[in-house]
């Protein structure tokens, strides 16, 4: 177990993952405290997504340990999942359901009762689209719905895979803003991207080749 | 001797069963051997290819 568990929320050491024949990363480690961000950089196919999936526990590592709040994540899946929200290029939204139905499902699975939905929807520019099936929304709007789910999840740890794709400049600014807000509230973000982003928060970087 | 082989009319059934068993066992062995040889050959080819390309 890492020594300074009090300040570190998410930490990892000795991560190693092979995909078929290729070694995506080896002996990888990091440590993040409250309000800190990890930026995973690299070209497409360099293993950014795999690293994020491995942190989330969707992918099993060849070796290495990940700790969330001082507990090994593999043995405390439930604790990690309750604190974590996941955003990837496949949004995980149902296109036949309406915006509200989609968000309500996530809230129900998390056991949340919330009443500030409207404020968040307003901030993300989704006001007035509540009753539309997602199919009728633009790709950018669909991404904003996924962001709304992230914001509403009350999760402390955000794992975001390419959060800036499919968004216009305003949307990208919005993502930056909600990440900064999350970090200020003491959250932890792991962001995989090939964009150059500047977020004013303590940031660690991992470059994958 | 031929009585033993004929088995009172059941010889064809018994000996075909035995023959089938022998064939299947030999086939299993042959298949296993062939697979092993193929694995060795594949690895060898891969090895030479990487050596040649380096």
């Amino acid at each position, binding site marked *: 177990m890492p020594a300074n568990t009090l300040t570190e929320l998410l930490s990892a050491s000795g991560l190693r993952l092979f995909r078929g024949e290729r070694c995506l990363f080896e002996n990888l480690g990091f440590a993040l405290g409250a309000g800190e961000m990890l930026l995973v950089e690299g070209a497409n196919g360099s293993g950014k997504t795999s690293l994020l999936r491995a942190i989330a526990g969707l992918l*099993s590592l060849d070796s290495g340990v990940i700790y969330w709040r001082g507990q090994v994540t593999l043995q405390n899946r439930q604790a990690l*999942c309750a604190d974590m929200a996941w955003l990837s290029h*496949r949004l*995980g939204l149902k296109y036949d*359901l309406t915006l509200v139905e989609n968000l309500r499902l996530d809230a129900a699975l*998390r*056991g949340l009762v919330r009443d500030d939905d409207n404020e968040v929807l307003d901030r993300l520019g989704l006001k007035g689209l509540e009753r539309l099936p997602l199919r009728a929304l633009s790709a950018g709007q669909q991404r904003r719905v996924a962001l709304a789910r992230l914001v509403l999840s009350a999760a402390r740890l955000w794992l975001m895979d390419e959060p800036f794709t499919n968004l216009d400049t305003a949307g990208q600014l919005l993502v930056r803003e909600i990440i900064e807000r999350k970090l200020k509230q003491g959250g932890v973000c792991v962001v995989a991207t090939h964009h150059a982003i500047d977020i004013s928060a303590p940031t660690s970087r991992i470059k994958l080749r | 001797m031929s009585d033993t082989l004929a088995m009172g009319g059941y010889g064809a059934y018994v000996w075909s069963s035995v023959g089938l068993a022998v064939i299947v066992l030999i086939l299993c062995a042959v298949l296993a051997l062939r697979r092993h040889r193929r694995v060795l050959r594949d690895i060898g080819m891969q090895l030479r290819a990487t050596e040649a390309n380096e």
Partner: protein
Amino acid sequence: MKELEQSESDLIAGLVAIIRRDLLLAWKRPGDAVNPLMFYAMVCTLFPLATGPSAEQLLQYGPGVLWVAALLATLLALNGLFLSDYEDGSLDQLILSPQPLPLLVLGKALAHWLVTGLPLVLMSPLLAMTFSVPSNVMGILMLTLTLGTLSLSMLGSIGAALTVGLNRGNALLSLLILPLAMPVLIFGARTVSLAVAGDATSAGVYILAAYCMFTVSLSPFATAAALKISNE
């Protein structure tokens, strides 16, 4: 104690939420539920055309045909159980949700059964009638089919989870699950045949009920494990 109650109600809320979602989705895409039903009806009508219209013969084979058709229709419908969730990334969200995955999988299988299995059960007396199955047997037919299709949905969800990412998954699912489904077929069809002959059926019903409980309680764990593997 308080905590336990809290977590139990959370579990039920999660189960209800996932069932609600899948029912809602089925409601918005009725074709997915109707196709297996049509398949069921068609297989059942093909059979008399192939064997001849003798009522006596039809009564003899009827229960078996109804059951084989129900089995195939259920498996056909199961192909899509996790497919759309896998494709749009919802599966990631389900696996990463704080609810235990076996519970969510159970909910999905139950919703799937409500959408495809239940209509099939409700339609079966209609088809059984054309095989001149006497009306006093309909109760047993529907009861056994209810238990049977529910077990098959549970069993089949394991296969659906194992084959979800594979492009050749369709035929594979049947190949994996059909041998495992044999007990359901045997007991279901035999029990109905016994009922047609006027014999006691309670043994068969009890066994089907036991098997149904068995699959409902155990298969979600296998399905959840398989889903996690397939989604890697």
